[in-house]
């Protein structure tokens, strides 16, 4: 089953019903009900251990669904996990980059996994402000913020429809964080959907279109 090629605004990008995900024996997600529409920027808010990271990994298709049902970018989380992965980009605490390669080589590699053209690679680098000085620098020599931008460029090159970001602002200075927000809004304008797990509560107003609380493995819309 091929998911919608051009999802319109009404199609849900994420639909979870009573989703349970376990880490070892522990039910990190204890029954999540969540719907995210296309073009939203959802901020996942919650204390450590609440399950934000697990929720993102579940939506990325990395973790199996222990109970409940879920559909991400039109693909069922039980039966079509590979298809989910192909369309989703996850930026976790690690960047998924190869330190010994340059920025351009990393973006080329990840882009090549979906058959991206050189033009698209260049466009991705441009978008992240990496084209000029940094394109041929080894990733291990970049600052945290620059590595983040490189990882995001890889997401762009992979044409990810859903961006899942785990504490992306961590380790960035104020300017870096503003840049990141701009990038995310631009991505959404171009058709992506974003879910961000963050402690950055001040961002709530400026960045997110919607805030969701993650508490003890479950999701609540804040009453305020």
């Amino acid at each position, binding site marked *: 089953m*091929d*998911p*919608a*090629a*051009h999802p319109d605004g009404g199609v849900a990008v994420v639909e979870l019903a009573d989703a349970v995900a376990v880490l070892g024996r522990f039910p990190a997600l204890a029954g999540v009900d969540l719907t995210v529409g296309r073009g939203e920027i959802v901020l996942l808010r919650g204390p450590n251990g609440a399950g934000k990271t697990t929720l993102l990994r579940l939506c*990325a*298709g*990395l*973790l*199996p669904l222990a109970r409940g049902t879920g559909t991400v*970018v039109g*693909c069922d989380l039980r039966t*079509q*996990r*590979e*298809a*989910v*992965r*192909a*369309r*989703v*980009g*996850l930026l*976790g*605490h*690690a*960047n*998924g*980059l*190869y*330190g*010994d*390669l340059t920025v351009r*080589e990393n973006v080329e*590699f*990840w882009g*090549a*996994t*979906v*058959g991206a053209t050189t033009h698209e690679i260049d466009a991705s680098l441009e978008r992240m402000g990496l084209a000029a000085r940094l394109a041929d620098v*080894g990733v291990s020599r970049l600052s945290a913020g620059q590595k983040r931008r490189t990882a995001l460029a890889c997401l762009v090159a*992979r*044409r990810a*429809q859903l961006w899942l970001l785990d504490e992306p602002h961590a380790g960035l200075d104020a300017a870096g964080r503003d840049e990141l927000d701009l990038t995310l809004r631009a991505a959404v304008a*171009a*058709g992506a959907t974003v879910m961000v797990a963050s402690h950055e509560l001040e961002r709530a107003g400026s960045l997110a279109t919607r805030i969701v609380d993650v508490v003890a493995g479950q999701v609540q819309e804040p009453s305020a």
Partner: protein
Amino acid sequence: MNDPSPVTGTSGHVATGVWRTARLIAGKDLRIERRSRVIVNQVLPFAALVMVLFAFALDNDDVLLRTAPGLVWLGTIFSLLILVQRSFAVESADGALDALRVAGVNPAGIFLGKSLALAVQLVVLEMLLVALAMVLYQAQLDAMGAVLLVTTIAPATTGLAFVGTLYGGLAAGARGRETLLPLLLFPVVAPVLIGATRATEAAFGAGSAAIDEGWPWVGVLLVFSALFGVGGTLAFGPLIEE
């Protein structure tokens, strides 16, 4: 940028094709090695050192000459362990193995690509060890022997690369798993050790083995390679899956 969704094959993986993926990943692994030079700077010297230590332990020129083929392949197998660990350390350093899975890359492609890169590294290693055997242990190689040796190295290397990548994928990542690698890997490489050593004995003419005796062993190595090439391609996906 209203991009169409990535074209996927029936399995749901991005349809970049298994071979293309394999070449992509092999190229990436080899390029990383070219940049970081970990193998060249650390593993090859280790292997050379092992050959020297063998000489200390065996302490007898005749014995060394006779056992030279065995020592070459023993050295190879010990180094294989480190090469495999390195191959997967490159991925887990920054969560890249996860990233490869998230990217929906076909696991068969990952398997073949990493095996290819590992095989290239192994060949370099083996040539070094053969050279050292000739220098340190006085092993000798004539033209026919060289032909046999080359045709031995090919399937032996691919066989080792396949099983190394396969079990390396299983042992990678989670804590307490890396120590599993030798336990799982060494029993499996035994046929390669036996076959490659016997064939190399024939190639060196060591222990009064004639060249002809080596060829059946090349056949054994080919079968091993083929079986684990296919088996690994099928098994790698389920093994690294969470």
